[in-house]
C-alpha cells in the first residue's frame, strides 16, 4: 500500500520534468531562430543600402548625359529606378545650383534613394541622400569633365 502523502507525487514530478526539459528545448530553439533572424536582417539591410548606393550611382551617370545646358541647369529627369540584390530602388533628383564666392556657377544635383513604392522619397523613407557637383570644363555648355560627390549620407 502506498502512503496517503505520496499520492500523485509521480505525476507532479513527471510534469515538472517535462516542463524543465521543454523550457530548455524552447530556449535552444529561440536562441537559434533569433540568431538566424538577426543575420537575415543584417543581410537585408546591407543589400538594401548597396542597392540604393548602386541606384544613385546609376542616376548620377544618367544625369551626366543630359544635354542642353547640362546637369544642374536642365531638369534632371527621373524618377530613376533600379533593382539590385533583390531590392527595387527609386531615385528622385532635384537641381541645387549655387554660386561660389568667386562667382563660379556650380551645377549641383541632389539625389534621394528609397525603396520603390511608387511614391516619392520622403525624409522617413530615404536610404541615401547625395549631392553631386558636375564640373563642366568642356567646349560644349553641357559637357561634363568630372563629378564631385559633395555629400553622401546613408540614413537607414
Amino acid at each position, binding site marked *: *500500500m502506498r502512503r496517503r502523502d505520496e499520492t500523485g507525487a509521480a505525476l507532479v514530478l513527471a510534469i515538472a*520534468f517535462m516542463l*524543465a*526539459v521543454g523550457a*530548455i*528545448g524552447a*530556449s*535552444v530553439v529561440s*536562441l*537559434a531562430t533569433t*540568431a538566424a533572424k*538577426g*543575420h537575415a536582417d*543584417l*543581410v537585408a539591410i*546591407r*543589400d538594401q543600402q*548597396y542597392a540604393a*548606393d*548602386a541606384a544613385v*550611382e*546609376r542616376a*548620377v*551617370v544618367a544625369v*551626366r*548625359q543630359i544635354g542642353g545646358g547640362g546637369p544642374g541647369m536642365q531638369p534632371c529627369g527621373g524618377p530613376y529606378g533600379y533593382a*539590385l*540584390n533583390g531590392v527595387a530602388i527609386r531615385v528622385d533628383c532635384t537641381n541645387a545650383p549655387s554660386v561660389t564666392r568667386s562667382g563660379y556657377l556650380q551645377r549641383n544635383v541632389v539625389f534621394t534613394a528609397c525603396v520603390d513604392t511608387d511614391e516619392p522619397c520622403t525624409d522617413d523613407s530615404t536610404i541615401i541622400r547625395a549631392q553631386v557637383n558636375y564640373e563642366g570644363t568642356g567646349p560644349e555648355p553641357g559637357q*561634363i*569633365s*568630372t*563629378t*564631385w*560627390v559633395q555629400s553622401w549620407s546613408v540614413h537607414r
Partner: protein
Amino acid sequence: MSVRVRCRDEAGIALVEIVIALVVIGLVVTAYFATFTTSAQVSKQHRDLVRADEVLRDYAEAVKRAVRDDCIDPQTRAPRPGAQITPEYSPPPGSGFTVSATGLACPSVTETGTVLITASHRDVQPPPLTIEVRTP
C-alpha cells in the same frame, strides 16, 4: 528498540526509484550541456556571419575608393575606361576569411560597372554582395 517493518510489496522499490532518479538526472544534465554546446555553436556561427558581412562591406568600400584612384588619370583627370581596379584590402589576420571579386574594370563615364564580391570561410558561406561603381 523499534524495528521498521517493510511491507513485502515494497521490496526493491528503493533501488528502482534510485535508478529512475539517476536516469532522469542524467537526462537533465545532458540536456543542460547540450544547450550550452548548441548556444556556443550558434553564437560562433552568428559571429562569423557578422564578420563576413563586415569583410564584404569593407571590401566594397575599398573597391569604391580604388575606383576614384584607378579610373581617372591623376594628372589630367581624364577617365581611363577598362583600367584595372585594384582595391587595397585584406581580411583581418586570423579571421579565416578570403575575399574575391569579379568585374574589377573601370567603366566608361556613360555607364556603371557591376562588381560581384564573394567572401568565403571554412565554417560559413555568406551570401555574395553586388555593388555598382562609377567613374567620377
